[in-house]
């Protein structure tokens, strides 16, 4: 059982490394989109500093959503998904392997590059750790929730099409708590309540979404 989990995990990492661009793409997207803002706004230090957490978070959210697009698509199209439902290991467990691999490939690099981008956007250094903390708690949730949307639309040729309509509303609570935490800590208040909330959402997502995803995938196979 755990063996199958590991196999899928390894398989997805291997494929991602084969394609390479799969790993770099969300990262590039993240860096590029964030740097579009100073270009569009002009180099106004005070302004940028004020909106930096918002920009970083919104972009992280978009990067996660977009990188998810291919999470089940290729498995669906080449028939691997059918095969996966015929295995001993329950599908709900296998999808967690895929999502974990996905987070390592996309979420983690985002976290690692964030300090650099934060500095470029004049975020004060003492806020960077809080920024990272919110991202650490938030991006796995985004991956898990996003995967549900992806699973629901995978059978539709135009898959990505209604995706943002399905996913973005579900992302907003995470976004709100994260940016509130950042605002609070910027003003010297405690952000514990928000962080606790984010953790609760993450736990909820980890326990429930695998089942929703597996159910959605099975529906897609119809």
């Amino acid at each position, binding site marked *: 059982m755990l063996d*199958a989990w590991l196999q899928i995990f390894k398989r997805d990492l*291997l*494929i991602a490394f084969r394609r390479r661009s799969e790993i770099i793409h969300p990262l590039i997207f993240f860096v590029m989109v964030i740097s579009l803002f100073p270009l569009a706004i002009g180099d106004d230090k005070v302004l940028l500093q004020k909106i930096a957490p918002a920009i970083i978070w919104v972009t992280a959210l978009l990067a996660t959503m977009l990188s998810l697009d291919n999470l089940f698509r*290729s498995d669906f199209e080449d*028939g*691997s998904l059918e095969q996966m*439902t015929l295995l001993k290991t329950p599908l709900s467990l296998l999808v967690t392997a895929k999502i974990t691999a996905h987070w390592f490939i996309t979420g983690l690099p985002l976290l690692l590059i964030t300090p650099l981008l934060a500095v470029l956007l004049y975020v004060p250094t003492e806020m960077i750790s809080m920024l990272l903390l919110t991202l650490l708690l938030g991006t796995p949730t985004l991956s898990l929730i996003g995967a549900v949307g992806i699973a629901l639309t995978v059978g539709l040729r135009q898959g990505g099409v209604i995706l943002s309509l399905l996913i973005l509303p579900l992302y907003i609570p995470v976004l709100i708590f994260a940016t509130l935490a950042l605002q609070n800590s910027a003003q010297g208040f405690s952000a514990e309540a928000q962080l606790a909330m984010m953790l609760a959402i993450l736990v909820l997502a980890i326990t429930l979404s695998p089942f929703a995803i597996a159910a959605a995938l099975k529906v897609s196979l119809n």
Partner: protein
Amino acid sequence: MEKQYLFTADLNVKNLACLRNEQVLFSGLNVSLSPENVLFLEGENGSGKTSLLRILCGFRLPDEGDITWGNQSISSVPEYSQNISYVGHKNGIKDELTVEENLNLMRSMATASDIETESVLKQIGLFKQADVLSRQLSAGQKRKLALARLMMTNNSFWILDEPFTSLDKATVVFFESLIKQHIARGGMLILTSHHDIDLSGLSVHHLNLSN
């Protein structure tokens, strides 16, 4: 002589119906299949063969009727679907993995057979391509790889949808003999094919879905 399969039972389909877009594809279908038997699905294009096979795999819920495996409903026997080797219209191989990696993946996910990967590669004639990405295979080579799934596991129930598309004649002969071995070991097989398949010596039931 190969070992007999341990996990087998009778498959019974009762009063099965399948709708697509509010159109009845088939209804009141009754079939049964025992170990060491082959069910050959026939019917013109669009008569519902693929749909039936997918229902048997559990991918699709029947709109009516019951399917039992050893007198239990298949939805209550998880081992039922784990015991299926399905090769459908889609190959179910990963383009980004090499031929060998694909084979090993197939094996590692289920009750593995005893046969060595290397020997499989040789038998299906992809030994030279072992390290080639599957994306770079020709249509027939991909199909061979998909069918190799049958050799990697110890499943006693094979469901094959048009298995021999794009295969050259030598490969077809090889897989025909594989099917015969499978049946001799007490296996079961349901398949469709628009081309003639040599199943001589086997007990084959025909079911025609055209009406």
